[in-house]
């Protein structure tokens, strides 16, 4: 059957030529999180296990000048740290630049690991305006299921972050016993 397609592998971002290695190891900046249309579309179509959600939500949008400073190209990986945690993200040129000194990460499991749970007694965590550092890294951006396993370790008997990070991936499909979803659903990929 022919379905209209809403799938998009990666958000569209502007080109960026990076020649040098960069001048800064660690970039101090302000972190904002929030939604954008790629993240929203991906989340609600329900493809959260997949690469497309990782690219939409697990991406750190940066000012191109900051990217030059760090020497990161589009879709290179960066490690973002705050007082509340750290996470590996894709780097990409922001569509809303210039905003030097500010990085934007769409809401999602990746952003959650570095945002503040402080509500200051008004119910709402502080998702925006958090001090952060960004540095280039070789580590991989985890898929959603792997990330959830790495952060919360609810169903693994292992405490060590590095070990969990390098476990075999849970993949991009639901993982559970005996499921024959192909038979239940009429779908075409």
């Amino acid at each position: 059957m022919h379905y209209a397609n809403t799938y998009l592998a990666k958000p569209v971002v502007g080109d960026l030529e990076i020649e040098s290695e960069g001048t800064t190891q660690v970039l101090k900046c302000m972190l904002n999180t929030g939604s954008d249309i790629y993240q929203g579309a991906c989340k609600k179509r329900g493809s959260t296990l997949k690469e497309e959600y990782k690219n939409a939500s697990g991406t750190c949008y940066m000012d191109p000048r900051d990217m030059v400073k760090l020497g990161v190209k589009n879709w290179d990986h960066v490690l973002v740290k705050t007082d509340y945690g750290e996470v590996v993200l894709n780097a990409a040129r922001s569509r809303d630049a210039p905003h030097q000194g500010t990085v934007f990460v769409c809401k999602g499991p990746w952003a959650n690991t570095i945002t503040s749970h402080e509500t200051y007694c008004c119910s709402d965590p502080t998702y925006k305006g958090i001090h952060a550092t960004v540095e280039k890294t070789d580590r991989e951006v985890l898929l959603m299921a792997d990330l959830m396993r790495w952060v919360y370790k609810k169903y693994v008997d292992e405490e060590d972050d590095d070990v969990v990070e390098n476990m075999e991936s849970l993949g991009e499909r639901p993982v559970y016993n005996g499921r024959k979803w192909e038979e239940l659903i009429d779908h075409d990929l």
Partner: protein
Amino acid sequence: MTYEPPVTDYDHIVENCTCAFCGCNCDDLDFLVKDGHVVAVRHACRLGASKVMEDMDQRLLVPMVRNEEGVLEEVDWDTALDTAAKYIAESVRPVFYGWSETSTECMKEGVELGEYIGAVLDNQATICHGPSLQAMQNAGYPIQTLGEVKNRADVIAYSGSNAMNSHPRHLARYAAFPRGYFRQRGRFDRTVITMDPKFSDTAKCSDKWIGFEQNGDYGFYNAIRAVLKGKKLQSESVSGIPAEDIYELVEEMESAEFGVLFFGLGLTHTLGKQRNIDIAIKMVQDLNANSKWGLTPMRGHFNVNGFNIFMAYETGWAFGVDFCRGYGRYMLGETNTIDLLVRKEPDCFMVIAADPGAHFPNGANQHLADIPVIQIDIHWGPSTELADVVLPGSFISVECGGTSYRMDGVPIWMKKAIDKPETCRDDEWIVRELKERVMKLREEPNVADKYVPNEGLACLLDK
């Protein structure tokens, strides 16, 4: 994105369906249906279309329970419901969170269960517009329906809201572009102002962008209020905005025939939180001295406002209502989900039509790793990775009818267009089943023998 030919192979069209994505609740969608599936959708934005044209790979179809190895195992409905009911019945501090993507009909079952067992009922407002609700409790709430905006507004301000990304049809259907009764030329008759530190997609299609600095919201609005009251600004710039720009802006806002301020999470998630909105509301009230202004919070989910409205008329309070003592308690920052989780209070967590896994900060979610989590949803998502029982619901407005409330409080009946997958159940049915099973398992706690009027009310009656 590559070019895609239009879908022409369909059996019939279902018209006037409602979009179950953001608070715009566009009710003009046409679903193209073939063999009982929606194969395309007309009039929707990218967000709405992507939700209706869901990814079936991750659709939850069968109830599941975690086994001893920590793997989700398919079970029949009875087993899943009994397991979930047992978790709830055995808990002393259950939290039922979510509700913003389901119907008020389902919430009705939920509030009955919550009152019976003594749970905390809370929704996504707690992580988005909670501060807005708190601010309106401090300062007031001058709003208008979106049709008023369409027909009358000549100045539209977006503050801390990137509507083009989070409410893509907002400008087109209600605010900036449509031809209204008193605004026959549509966009040409209106001035659009975006106030946001970021040069967002909304700012890009506005007439004016006020890029105040990060966390500068409060100072900026305070300056506007000062100028409105005829004061002279003492410094050359406020929150990064030059004083003369503020004077100019105030003049523009004051000379509006009908102005509207739409504000989003940019105000609620930064450090001033509810105070940012307090002052924005007060600014709107001040503007009414010489002009006509209103505001509307840009609610994110299609029924997040609905839950607040629903809870207000059912229980008296909007969200974060705690029934553990047999009567409602409401205290922002105490009886809300994030605060409860951070304090590690809950011992059972039911999430319905929401995704804390995707949207709660790490510091709150950590506690979900320690307690049983029951998930009622339609897709396998981040919360499924934390869930111990998974109950597959149905898709409101596509597979199931129900009532929702738009961001401006207009109620909309979301009709059903196609049948749900055979193995799924309606949210309403699931929660009712849970309620009945919990009632069998456990006697109702904290019931008074006799009606005892509240002492405060009693002394008022004596007056």
